[in-house]
């Protein structure tokens, strides 16, 4: 039985996939990840929720016709967040329904992240994701980010 850390790009792709689609690359990736996890379940961290919310808010601004969502977000973050409130609520409900385990950012996670930055030299954000995964006892990480291939204790389930 394997435990799998679900990186933001995996959750994002799942939540932005076409409803009811069966044979696309996102569906194939999801099927492979769920198959690999068996009954071991998925793990996320606060970082995943942070990144997910931010990237979705930008995506929704673009969906609504904004050609420069980053500038819009920076100019009036409160307005952008309020406009996204209803859609974010639906997203949190969807994420909650998946019964994922939330790995807290404990002291051990921070120390592990520091070590991963030093060796093998992960980028800070990747180091924190990997540290959460390792502290949660994961042996898999569902991610399109090749940076995690440097972590010997994690096998990446790629799209």
């Amino acid at each position, binding site marked *: 039985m394997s435990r799998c850390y679900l990186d933001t790009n995996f959750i994002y792709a*799942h939540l932005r996939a076409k*409803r009811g689609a069966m044979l696309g690359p996102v569906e194939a990736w999801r099927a492979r990840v769920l198959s690999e996890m068996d009954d071991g379940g998925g793990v996320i961290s606060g970082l995943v929720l942070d990144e997910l919310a931010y990237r979705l808010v930008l995506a929704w601004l673009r969906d609504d016709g904004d050609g420069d969502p980053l500038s819009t977000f*920076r100019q009036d973050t409160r307005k952008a967040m309020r406009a996204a409130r209803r859609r974010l609520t639906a997203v949190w409900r969807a994420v909650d329904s998946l*019964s994922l385990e939330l790995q807290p950012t404990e002291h051990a996670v921070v120390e592990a992240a520091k070590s991963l930055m030093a060796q093998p030299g992960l980028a800070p954000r990747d180091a924190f994701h990997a540290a959460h995964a390792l502290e949660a006892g994961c042996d898999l990480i569902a991610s*399109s980010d090749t940076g995690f291939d440097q972590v010997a204790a994690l096998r990446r389930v790629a*799209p």
Partner: protein
Amino acid sequence: MLTIAWRVEELAAQRGLTARQLAEEAGLDQKTVRNILAGRATRVDLNTIARLSRALGVGPGSLWDLGADPARAWETSAGSAGEARPGELDDVLAGRWSEQTDPALERALRSP
């Protein structure tokens, strides 16, 4: 299909027990307890059920509930954030997310 969902998380929360504390109380491995707390464990032996039951002070039958289906949740939650624009997910799947949409970078570069 009839499905069973664990109520252990709810019961542990009512007693103010973290996963670690519950594992210690029950004499179980933390990983096992975390899987059960997250409602994912589907193959749990009778000894584990007895230990959890004793640690939480409830009868074994109170440890689960009927009705939930986690596997189905993946199907129903797909597309919950709206359908991606053409090409949007190609970049995500290829690991080419723009650095400009990195929340940490955005925060670091934001004007005071």
